[in-house]
Structures are given as structure tokens and as C-alpha cells.
């Protein structure tokens, strides 16, 4: 297959130019201008960006146990539609992914029915209960790429310290969801003027920052690889910037919704804007954007968190936290952050491909001869409107409903095989 005439952007090599990509046997065989070799199929990429397959390292696929919200099949189809070639899925399923057989089960279902690659993040503690370490060694052997109790914070600092030490020996990062349970208890949105106006129970910003500070201190002491999920406060950014300057092995991600929305999105009590961690202030949003541009935050990850419509159509304090994001992430990052001048095209591509791969030590994230052909084509000029009912995810809970976005993935290739072209998912 020949991808012809696109603008190839590859952060690993610094390549940015009009090149053709020849794909054979699932790998990139040649990457050069005006390739003349014959190919069984030609993909016209003129006007589009050709980038390393986008990797979303924070996705909730909900299977097993919560198949009314999402399934591995539907979640990976949403990823393919969103231009994403690989996802790392979180272990807060029912039961939790906290053992080697569970890891293998998810991998097996993903191989059978997944539209894109699925990497499994195992639970840090048994049952995600925060009391005893899960069998991380066996899970690592079964293929778990990282460990996390995402959705909950390990509130026992001694246990978190042990978890970091244990995972470190296995060569796996720990992904921390940072929110102090006592400060966040009962909260629905970020504490501040908007929560006060709406009369909703607030979660103070320091609910995140005290745990970020704690976990950074533990990473500093143990030397373990710590990855901070979905940062949401300016103060967290300051702590991470200082820690990185001092050589602490910590990385961080941010979600598109924290880069584009503030607590004002809750005005009118939109349940799609109820997310964890909660949307912050404009100051937080600007600090997160700067941190991403400066490399203090490594990657953008969607925290795709689908829920059934009837679950979200409840009293706001009863409705579950979370927003879907697989199908809007690339438009927001590659389209809008670039057009707003926050990121260069090269930085934007790195934030959704090379950097997330490096954060979790995953293959991919590069376009080079010999690499596996995971490739995303993105049309930076295509305008579209986010319509919840047209999403491929089973979740309809997008806080961007009705937004007119400019920029859209137009092809998704996994291992040399097109799984999406012009918005149409392609079956086996």
C-alpha cells in the first residue's frame, strides 16, 4: 500500500515534509519523496498530515462487567474512528483487572474483537481496594504495561511507596490518579465561584495537589517511574515542573477537556461536564496549556469514560463522573491547539504519539523504515460538528456536544491494515 502526497510529521526523527510511505507486510518499507514502486493500493493523502499512529494511554473500555457502558469492541471502534491506533485500558472494570488471567482475558477479547491495539494497565492493589498489592509480577509477565488504581487514589502512603518500589523492579511505571479522598468526599465539581453559584458541593484544587506532592516525594525517594494521570491544577504543574528539573522520574498527562473547558461548563448542570478530576479555573487551563507546550506535561490522553445515557440523566450529584473523548481528541489537539498557537504541529503530533509511547514504554510512536505500520492520517482543514448520537462509542457523554471542530482524522492504519477511511470503519 502506498500513502501518497501527505505531509509526513514524525517527531522522533524531526521529519516534516511531503513524503510517500510504502507499506508492505504490516511494516513501513520505504519513506521517501515520490516513490514510484507499484503498490496494490494507493491512499491519496494530499492535504492531510501523515503521523505515527496516535496512542491514547488513558481509556476506560469497561469490559468485563460494565458492558452497558462500553465494550472492548465498541471502545476500540471509537478509537479507530478517532484516528487512534492503540489504547491503554484502565483496570477499573468489574471485577477489576488485578490478576494475570484477567490481563490475558482482556488481551484475548481485544485480539478477537478489537479494532485497534489494546494495552492493559493492571491494578496496583487487589480489587483496587487500596489495602494489599496486586500480583504485579504475574500481570507484567502476562503483558500488563503499567499499574494503576485509576479512579481511586491509594490513600495509604506506605502502600503507595511499596507499590512504586515493587513496580519499579518490574520495569513498569505506576500511573497515579491524584485526588485526596477526604478532601474530595461528596464533591461534584471544582470548588470555586462557579460551584458556589450553582450550589454544588466543591472539590478543592488542593485535593489533587497534596497527592501530587506526596507521590512526587515518593518517586524521588524510591527512584521509581511515576506517571501522573490527568493533571488539572496550576499548582500540580508547578510541583511537576520543579520535580522534573531536579531529575525526579515523573511524567504527566492532561486531557483535552481540561485543556479546553473550565468549571463554567457545569453552568446549566450539564452532566457531561462532570468529570474526575473536576474541570478547573481559567488559570488552571492556561497553566496546563503552557505546561504541555513546555514539555512539563508529556502527553494528551482522553480519559475516555463512557457511561449509559440513563446513568448520566440523573441528579448531578448522583450521576457518575466521566466524559467520552476518543473521537474528539485529535481534532482538539492537532486541530485547535495548533491553530490557536499553543503547540506547533510537531509538538501536537508528539503529544499524541511519540510521547505517550515513551511514557508507558510502548512500541510505536515513530514513522521510519522497518517500523510497524501504525499510521494516522489527519485532515487539518475538515470541519465537522460533534453530534453525540453519531459517536461510535456507546457513551453519549461528550462535553463538546454541538461544538464545530476543524480538523478530523481521515484514515487509521493498524499494522498496515486500514481500519478507518473517511469516517467509515472497515471490517475484517
Amino acid at each position, binding site marked *: 500500500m502506498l500513502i501518497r502526497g501527505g505531509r509526513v510529521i514524525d517527531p522522533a526523527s524531526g521529519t516534516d515534509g511531503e513524503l510517500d510511505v510504502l507499506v508492505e507486510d504490516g511494516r513501513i518499507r520505504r519513506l521517501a519523496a515520490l516513490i514510484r514502486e507499484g503498490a496494490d493500493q494507493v491512499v491519496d493523502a494530499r492535504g492531510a498530515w501523515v503521523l505515527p499512529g496516535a496512542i491514547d494511554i488513558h481509556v476506560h473500555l469497561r469490559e468485563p462487567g460494565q458492558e452497558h457502558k462500553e465494550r472492548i469492541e465498541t471502545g476500540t471502534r471509537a478509537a479507530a474512528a478517532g484516528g487512534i491506533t492503540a489504547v491503554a485500558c484502565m483496570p477499573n472494570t468489574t471485577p477489576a483487572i488485578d490478576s494475570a488471567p484477567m490481563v490475558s482475558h482482556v488481551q484475548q477479547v481485544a485480539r478477537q474483537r478489537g479494532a485497534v491495539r489494546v494495552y492493559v494497565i493492571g491494578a496496583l492493589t487487589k480489587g483496587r481496594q487500596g489495602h494489599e498489592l496486586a500480583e504485579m509480577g504475574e500481570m507484567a509477565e502476562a503483558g500488563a504495561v503499567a499499574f494503576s488504581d485509576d479512579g481511586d487514589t491509594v490513600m495509604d502512603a506506605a502502600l503507595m511507596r511499596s507499590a512504586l518500589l515493587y513496580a519499579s523492579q518490574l520495569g513498569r511505571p505506576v500511573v497515579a490518579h491524584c485526588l485526596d479522598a477526604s478532601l474530595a468526599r461528596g464533591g461534584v465539581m471544582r470548588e470555586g*465561584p462557579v460551584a458556589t453559584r450553582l*450550589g454544588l458541593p466543591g472539590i478543592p484544587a488542593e485535593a489533587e495537589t497534596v497527592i501530587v506532592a506526596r507521590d512526587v516525594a515518593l518517586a524521588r525517594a524510591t527512584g521509581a517511574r511515576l506517571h501522573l494521570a490527568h493533571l488539572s491544577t496550576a499548582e500540580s504543574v508547578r510541583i511537576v515542573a520543579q520535580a522534573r528539573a531536579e531529575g525526579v522520574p515523573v511524567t504527566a498527562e492532561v486531557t483535552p477537556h481540561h485543556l479546553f473547558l473550565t468549571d463554567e461548563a457545569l453552568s446549566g448542570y450539564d452532566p457531561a461536564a462532570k468529570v474526575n478530576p473536576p474541570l478547573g479555573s481559567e488559570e488552571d487551563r492556561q497553566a496546563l496549556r503552557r505546561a504541555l507546550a513546555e514539555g512539563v506535561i508529556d502527553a494528551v490522553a482522553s480519559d475516555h469514560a463512557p457511561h449509559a445515557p440513563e446513568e448520566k440523566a440523573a441528579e448531578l450529584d448522583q450521576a457518575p463522573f466521566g466524559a467520552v473523548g476518543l473521537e474528539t481528541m485529535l481534532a482538539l489537539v492537532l486541530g485547535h491547539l495548533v491553530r490557536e498557537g499553543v503547540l506547533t504541529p510537531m509538538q501536537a503530533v508528539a503529544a499524541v504519539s511519540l510521547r505517550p509511547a515513551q511514557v508507558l514504554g510502548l512500541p510505536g510512536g515513530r514513522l521510519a523504515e522497518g517500523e510497524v505500520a501504525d499510521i494516522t492520517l489527519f485532515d487539518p482543514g475538515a470541519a465537522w460538528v460533534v453530534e453525540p448520537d453519531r459517536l461510535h462509542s456507546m457513551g453519549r457523554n461528550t462535553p463538546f456536544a454541538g461544538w464545530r471542530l476543524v480538523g478530523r482524522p481521515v484514515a487509521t492504519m493498524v499494522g498496515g491494515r486500514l481500519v478507518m477511511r473517511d469516517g467509515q470503519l472497515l471490517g475484517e
Partner: protein
Amino acid sequence: MWPKHLLALEELEAGDIRQILDTADAMRQVFERPVKKFPTLRGRVVVNLFYEPSTRTRTSFELAAKALSADVVNVAVAQSSVVKGESLVDTARTFESLGADYVVIRHASAGVPHLLARTIRARVVNAGDGAHEHPTQGLLDLYTIRRRKGRVEGLNVLILGDVLHSRVARSDIWGLRKLGASVGVAGPATLLPVGLEALGVRRFHRLDEALEWADVVNVLRIQRERMQRGYLPSLREYRLRWGLTEQRLRRLREGVLIMHPGPANVGVEIDEAVLTDARSAVSEQVTNGVAVRMAVLYLMAGREREDGEAP
């Protein structure tokens, strides 16, 4: 045009609020007639859907709707049926199918009236949602101030106590600010929410200073469970530091107006002698509540006729 629903005073214009207060004046005169009824809502069904117990507000809405000749259904939804799994939206749709034209909703969660207004065709009146708003209480407070002081504009109104958890405080703040009053709050720092300054509210840290400033003092109820979450050390200490006690009453200015949305914890946030003092408008607030709620329903019925939905 008068809004379709009454969800929050935040959403009303000053002119709308004045129109309600003027209409309430007319409604009060109905009580002085031998037949205390208007035909405005004849043939219309008003459902009082209360997810929290409230004798006072529920009765007030019931009397107001009946005085306008509506058929009134009172529904007290016990917590148990929430546990049984019938969702709020299902319940509201059921009553709509049974012919409800107006749903008066009281709920412990902020935003529930907005959720209903998005979901059902009936007109929604917020009778208190979580710590968000209690717009008819705010209106009756404004009405009471206007009757007693002759005006709202230019007055200094102090809201004293648990502002953090108070829907009354928020409706009062919006209504008072829109009608040109100055608003101050006082209470323990743990019970004053952040960002009140954004609503144009002044914060007092000493009660004596606040009381010297105030033309009107609205005393909020203190819930006993506030100690369990660490907001307060004890009710005793609350009374000593922030209670409107008999001793403090003596230091208040002669013309000060004292209000309380009720029901009061006598001996905690307010003393019996203060409630019964000539400067207290607490019992008048209750009477005014019916007139104000009649005014709200009357104006909503007018909007309904404009929309062409009247029978």
C-alpha cells in the same frame, strides 16, 4: 416575556422581580375578600413533588395553587422509592402523563429543577434544590423587606450563618443585588463558600461589626449534622460566637429588621426573645409566602396563555 419556568432568581431580570412583588400585593388583597379565590388556574393540575420533607413550603404552595383554583396533588417521595430504583426523570414523566401542568419540585440535589425543565413539557417551579436556590423564599424575603422598610434599594442586608449549605442565601443574594441592596455575609469561615465576592457580596469576620452595618439581618438555620463533617466544634460555641442572642438584640439599632426562613433552632442561631421581638418579621414571612407563590403561579399562567396552551 415572563420565563416559562421559575428555576432561579439568577435568571430573572430586576423588572420581572418587581412585577412579582407588585402582583403579590394584589394577591394579598384577595385574602381580605369574602371569597378568597381567583379562577386563574381552573382546570390546571399542580403537582407538588417533594423529595425532602417540608411542611411549610409545601403547604404554602398548596394554598397558593388552591387560591388560584388549581387541582393540587401533593407527592412526598420517600427516600425508599429512590432506593427502589425509579429514577427522578421516570417519576416526573409519570406525573406529566397523569396530566400535571405545573411541577413544583423540592430536591436535595442542586440542578434537579433544570434537569426536569430539560426533560418534561410541564412548567417547573423550583421549591428548593440542594444548596443552589429557593427562589420563592428569596422573593418572599424581598417582599417582606419591601413591605416593612418601604424599599429594597440602598439597604444593607446581612445574611448570617451557614451560607455554604444555604439555597435561601443564594436566592436572597441574587434578588437583593438585582434590586440594588448591598449584601454582606457573616459566619464561621468553614461555612462561608469561596468566591462569594464574585456575586458582589461583602464578607464580615466579626459579628458585632456586621450587626452595626446591617439594616436587615436574615438568620440562617444551623443543621445539627454540621459538627460531624468538622464544620463546627459545637452548637454551644456557635451560639456564643454567631447566634443572634437576646444580649445582641439589645445592641441592634431600633429600625433593624430580623428575618429567618424557618424552621428555627431556637437557642442556637436565634433566641426566642429575638423571634418574638417587634423588629422580627418571621411570622409575617410565612403569610407573605402564600401571596408571593400565588403571584408566581399567576404570572406563569399568563405566560401559558401567551404560549397558547390554555384549555
